C-alpha cells in the first residue's frame, strides 16, 4: 500500500518535459518534490503565478507571494505574476498541460466530486470547477477507500459534482486506474497489493487485461 508521498512519486512520472502543471492542495502539492530534475517543468498556481519554486527559507517568507493553498512560496527564474482573470484565462484556453487534484469520489465515466458534503462540509469549489472543465489531462490523487473502508471509486458519484466526464487517470494507495470509454481500467497495482484486494476495494467494475504490473515507485 502506498503512502501519500508514494502516490505523489508515482504521479510525478506523468509529468513530462515542457509541461505547464497546476497542482491542487494536499497530495498533489507533494508531486513537485519528485519531478525528474532533467526535464523542464513550470508550476502554475491559479491565484496568479507561473514558475513557482519551493517554500522560502525561514525568515524569507513574503506575505505577498503565496500559492493557491495560501502557503508562502518562492519563484524561480523566468517566473511571472498575473491577476485571477488572466490566470483562469490560461487555464480555460488550455495552456496548462496537466492538472493534478484531489477528490472525494470519482465515477467510471470520469465524473469527479470534491467540493461539498451536503449538511456536513461546504468549503467551496475554489478553482477546481474551472480546472476540471478546461483541462485536457486531469490526474486525480486520492485514497481508494474512505475512513469507513468504503470505496471512493464508484459507478456513479453520490456527492455534488465538480465536473463531468473529465478525469483521465487516478492514482490511489492501491492502484493506477485509467478512465476509458468502457469504464475503469486497472493499469498498475501498488507493491504487495493483489488484484483481488483492488477489486474488493472498488465499487465500480474494473477492466482487467492480462497480468497487472506492480508500480515502479
Amino acid at each position: 500500500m502506498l503512502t501519500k508521498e508514494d502516490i505523489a512519486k508515482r504521479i510525478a512520472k506523468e509529468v513530462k518535459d515542457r509541461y505547464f502543471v497546476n497542482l491542487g492542495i494536499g497530495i498533489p502539492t507533494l508531486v513537485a518534490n519528485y519531478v525528474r530534475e532533467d526535464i523542464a517543468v513550470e508550476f502554475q498556481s491559479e491565484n496568479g503565478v507561473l514558475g513557482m519554486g519551493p517554500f522560502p527559507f525561514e525568515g524569507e517568507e513574503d506575505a505577498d507571494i503565496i500559492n493557491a493553498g495560501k502557503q508562502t512560496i518562492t519563484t524561480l527564474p523566468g517566473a511571472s505574476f498575473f491577476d485571477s482573470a488572466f490566470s483562469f484565462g490560461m487555464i480555460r484556453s488550455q495552456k496548462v498541460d496537466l492538472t493534478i487534484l484531489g477528490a472525494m469520489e470519482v465515477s467510471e465515466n470520469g465524473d469527479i466530486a470534491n467540493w461539498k458534503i451536503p449538511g456536513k462540509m461546504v468549503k467551496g469549489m475554489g478553482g477546481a470547477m474551472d480546472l476540471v472543465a478546461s483541462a485536457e489531462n486531469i490526474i486525480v490523487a486520492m485514497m481508494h477507500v474512505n475512513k469507513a473502508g468504503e470505496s471512493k471509486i464508484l459507478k456513479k458519484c453520490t456527492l455534488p459534482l465538480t465536473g463531468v466526464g473529465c478525469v483521465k487517470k487516478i492514482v490511489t494507495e492501491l492502484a493506477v486506474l485509467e478512465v476509458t470509454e468502457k469504464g475503469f481500467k486497472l493499469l498498475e497495482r501498488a507493491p504487495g497489493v493483489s488484484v483481488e484486494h483492488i477489486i474488493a476495494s472498488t465499487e465500480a467494475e474494473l477492466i482487467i487485461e492480462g497480468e497487472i504490473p506492480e508500480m515502479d515507485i
Partner: protein
Amino acid sequence: MITKKVNNVQDAIKGIETGMTIMFGGFGLCGIPENTIAALVNTSISDLTCISNNAGVDDFGLGLLLQKKQIKKMISSYVGENAEFERQMLSGELEVELTPQGTLAERCRAAQAGIPAFFTPAGYGTEVAEGKEVREFNGKMHIMEQAFKADFSIVKAWKGDEAGNLIFKGTARNFNACMAGAGKITIAEVEELVPVGTLDPNQIHIPGIMVQRIFQGEKFEKRIEQRTVRKRA
C-alpha cells in the same frame, strides 16, 4: 492630471451604505484592503452583499465584518478557513453563493470591461449550472454567467499615485486587478502613495481611470495564513 487622492480612509468610505453590494480584492489574506475593512468594522453599516474570493479568517479580513454581523450575503469561491462563517451559513443567518473561482474572476473582469455576460465550461453538469442558459460551442457545453453589479470595488495595491494608477506586488495582484473599475466607485488603498510622475507608465498594472479614490493605508499587518518554510541545508 485628475486627482483621485482622498485624505484618509474615512473620506474613502463615504457613501457606503447599508444594503450595498461591495467587491473586495484579495486571495485568502493576501492583498486584502485591510485598512478599509477595519474602517467599515467601525461603522454601523450592515446588510452588505460582499463579492470576495474568500471570507477572511475568524479574526482578520472579512471575518471581522462577519463577526459583527454586517454581512447579509457572501459571493465567494472558497470559504474553508472561517469557523464563524460556517456557523452563520449553517444556521441560515448568512446567505452564501458559491461560484467557481475563474467564473468569479471573469464576472469581475466582465463588469470592468463592460461585457454583460459570457459563456464558460466551468460548472457545466453541476449544481452551479442550475437555472443558467446552456449552449454548445465547438462541441463543448458551456453555461452563461453574468457580470457582477457592485456599488463599490475596494482594492489594495502596492504602489499608486494621485492619478489613481496602480502597481501590485507578487500574488497580491489576484482579484484586485480584476475588481478595479468593476464597481460604480473604486476605492484603492495602497502601501505607498507616490508623487505623480514617479511611476513608469510602462509598468502601470491598472490605469487611474479605473480608480475614483486613492489613499495610503495607515498600517499594513499583511498577515500570513500558512507560513511554510524549508530548512537551510
